[in-house]
């Protein structure tokens, strides 16, 4: 338990490094980088300790700080939930962040960038926010750190604020994700209002539940019909399941924004304006991962809502395919990676939606590694290329930067899903889960799964294609520019992180080789075991966050069932074979088109489709149009209305009064005879009035 006592330090250490870098960074060597490295390194060690403790079967879910005590009302508290899922995520975040910090020494310090304290402060806060999000034991705390993550992305994407592009991209990133967070916030408020708690897992003391969690309450309401205590249902006039679906979808809004799912993915490619290490951090471990992690975190809540599951699966599948097609035609190395990120998170969503909880977490893990690797590799290339990111100006870097090449290749194979690299195992499992649940589940949900599966499968081919198009254009063939012929060498601080990640990208998939496990019967699906926990008792019983529990819910409530069209093992092998085959097909297609010494553009062959793809299906255009073509004119019109009508009425009242005044004063004509006349008239009128009233006449 001692590890848990120090767990808050995992979050606080990077936060301290933020403060140190911000206020003392310019007086420190390396502009505060060392503080960040120390802090994330410390956090990494503590995370490992926590993970080991969790591996020992212990978990932790306690409140640590009372934010709002609440008088005769809800208490709002911060707490830590440390279970296998969050322990795993802590490891990922700390590791990536640590490596990114080191890499930044090469990418930022060695390039003599200004504003380093600000940079490292941003990284520190970013890491701290993400870690806070990961360990949050309730939805409110999660939301708060989720928002802080958004702030940090704004600060870091807009790091080069003296140029025009980065501030704009930063604004877009924050704004688009804020739009998603709007729904998330409604969801958070709604869940608190509905259940009176935002806990992800019940808090227990001495075996007694002292604070129930909302997924458990929801479960009781849907399965056991315990809805008396949920007053909100009467207010909204819906059935429990329908209302929970609404809430779940609202929360999903935030997920779609942060994890860059369709249609809120548009911020992510723009976010490439930030420094490349930041991109690595955002894509691999922090911001984008937050969305998917959130769904996994409160998976029990989604598992009871088939509609929400279908939406998640479809959004994920569609995004996977959609983003992959856009990645086909990009010319800049980071853009390709950006779209691949969107696509890969689509797979995770697909997995979550289709009941593949393990698959999603698995893909999250492997993706974190290989995507960080690819970005850092790209960063290395960018250093070498004097910050020219256009792949058509590269070529032939393979010989000049071997370390970068081989590690990048490792990452690319993982991304493309080539056996035995990490991405193959996880992506295969995602597709497999979608497939078997699609066949097994009755009704619309099953159809949705199959549709999502189809889209995900198709995306595998595109993934292989664009990944190796990138590899060939960047590293193979002849150098197409002077800088590519004479690239700037990179130092250990770049190569070191690449090497670590390159190794991991090749091997991390072994933690859950499900096909192998199935075939051999060996218990080597470690991740499955890790997240499943003991089948009876232990932490899954206390926290209700175990895989077994989720599968029960999926089966009992959403009726997600497995189906094997070809029998269990053949289906598994067929699925793996198809996806591998498609991935290889993509790789080969790329090779055939771009592998030569002097590759040429083939995009023109796509005709009109090229234009559409280059413009990203006009997604940006319509969203910009919504902002500047609709919202802004409406605002202008309202402003006119305000100035003209609302203020006009106010000014009108005063004008009318003053006009009345200017008329009334005309009575005073200056002629004393008129005065006498009016005086007499007044008297006569009074006389007449009272004469009639009093009956004098």
């Amino acid at each position, binding site marked *: 338990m001692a590890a848990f006592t120090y767990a808050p330090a995992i979050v606080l250490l990077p936060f301290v490094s933020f403060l140190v870098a911000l206020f003392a960074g310019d007086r420190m060597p390396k502009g505060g980088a060392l503080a960040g490295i120390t802090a994330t390194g410390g956090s990494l060690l503590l995370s490992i300790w926590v993970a080991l403790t969790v591996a020992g079967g212990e978990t932790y879910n306690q409140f640590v700080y009372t934010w709002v005590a609440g008088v005769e009302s809800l208490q709002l508290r911060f707490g830590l939930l440390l279970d296998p899922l969050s322990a795993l995520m802590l490891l990922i975040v700390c590791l990536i962040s640590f490596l990114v910090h080191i890499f930044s020494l090469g990418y930022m310090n060695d390039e003599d960038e200004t504003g380093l304290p600000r940079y490292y402060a941003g990284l520190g806060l970013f890491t701290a926010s993400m870690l806070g999000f990961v360990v949050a034991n309730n939805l409110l705390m999660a939301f708060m750190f989720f928002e802080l993550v958004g702030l940090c992305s704004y600060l870091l994407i807009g790091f080069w604020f003296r140029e025009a592009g980065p501030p704009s991209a930063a604004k877009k990133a924050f704004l688009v994700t804020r739009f998603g967070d709007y729904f998330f916030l409604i969801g958070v408020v709604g869940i608190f209002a509905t259940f009176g708690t935002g806990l992800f897992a019940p808090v227990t003391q001495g075996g007694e539940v002292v604070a129930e969690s909302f997924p458990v309450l929801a479960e009781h309401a849907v399965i056991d019909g315990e809805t008396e205590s949920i007053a909100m249902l009467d207010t909204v006039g819906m059935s429990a399941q329908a209302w929970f679906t609404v809430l779940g979808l609202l929360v999903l809004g935030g997920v779609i924004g942060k994890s860059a799912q369709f249609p809120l993915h548009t911020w992510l490619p723009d976010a490439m304006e930030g420094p490349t290490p930041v991109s690595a951090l955002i894509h691999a471990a922090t911001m984008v991962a937050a969305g998917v992690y959130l769904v996994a975190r409160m998976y029990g809540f989604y598992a009871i809502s088939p509609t929400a599951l279908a939406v998640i699966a479809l959004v994920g599948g569609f995004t996977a395919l959609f983003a992959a097609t856009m990645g086909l035609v990009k010319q800049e190395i980071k853009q390709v990676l950006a779209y691949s990120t969107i696509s890969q998170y689509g797979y995770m969503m697909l997995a979550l939606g289709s009941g593949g909880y393990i698959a999603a977490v698995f893909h999250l893990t492997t993706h974190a590694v290989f995507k960080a690797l690819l970005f850092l590799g790209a960063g290395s290339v960018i250093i070498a290329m004097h910050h020219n990111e256009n792949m058509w100006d590269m070529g032939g870097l393979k010989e000049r930067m071997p370390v970068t090449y081989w590690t990048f290749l490792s990452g690319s194979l993982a991304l493309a899903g080539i056996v035995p690299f990490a991405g193959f195992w996880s992506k295969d499992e995602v597709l497999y889960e979608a497939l078997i649940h699609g066949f097994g589940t009755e009704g619309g949900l099953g159809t949705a799964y199959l549709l999502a599966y189809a889209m995900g499968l198709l995306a595998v081919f595109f993934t292989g294609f664009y990944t190796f198009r990138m590899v060939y254009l960047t590293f193979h063939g002849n150098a197409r520019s002077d800088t590519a012929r004479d690239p700037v060498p990179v130092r250990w601080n770049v190569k070191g992180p690449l090497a670590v990640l390159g190794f991991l990208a090749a091997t991390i998939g072994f933690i859950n080789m499900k096909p192998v496990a199935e075939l051999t019967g060996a218990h080597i699906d470690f991740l499955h075991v890790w997240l499943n926990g003991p089948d009876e008792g232990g932490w899954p019983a206390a926290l209700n966050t175990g895989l077994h529990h989720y599968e029960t819910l999926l089966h009992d409530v959403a009726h997600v069932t497995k189906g094997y069209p070809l029998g269990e093992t053949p289906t598994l092998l067929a699925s793996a074979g198809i996806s591998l085959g498609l991935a290889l097909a993509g790789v080969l297609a790329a090779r055939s088109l771009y592998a030569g010494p002097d590759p040429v553009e083939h995009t023109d062959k796509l005709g009109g489709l090229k234009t559409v793809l280059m413009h990203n299906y006009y997604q940006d255009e319509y969203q910009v149009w919504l902002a500047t073509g609709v919202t802004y004119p409406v605002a202008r019109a309202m402003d006119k209305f305000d100035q003209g009508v609302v203020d006009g009425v106010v000014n009108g009242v005063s004008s009318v009064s003053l006009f009345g005044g200017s008329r009334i004063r005309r009575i005073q004509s200056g002629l004393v*005879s008129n005065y006498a006349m009016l005086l007499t008239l007044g008297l006569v009128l009074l006389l007449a009035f009272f004469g009639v009233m009093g009956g004098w006449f």
Partner: protein
Amino acid sequence: MIPAETYLLLSAAVFCIGLFGILTRRNALIFLMSVELMLNAANINFVAFSLQHGNLTGQVFALFGMALAAAEVAIGIGIILVLYRNFTDVDVTKATTMRW
């Protein structure tokens, strides 16, 4: 004895004549005279009803009224005099520098 209504009619008539003068004449002096007529209409009432009621209050008031009328004329003439000096006219409608 002449009925009281007759006096009332007489005084009302005198009052109205005075009022008519005020409304129609522009010469300040005639204006002043018209006011005197109105005041005297009141005096008629006082004297007549003093007799009617058999007490002297009315008559006393009439005496006061005459004295005050005289004082008023004195002030009035003075003002009309300075009016003439400033506007070279005793037309009450000439002095209209202040209005609205």
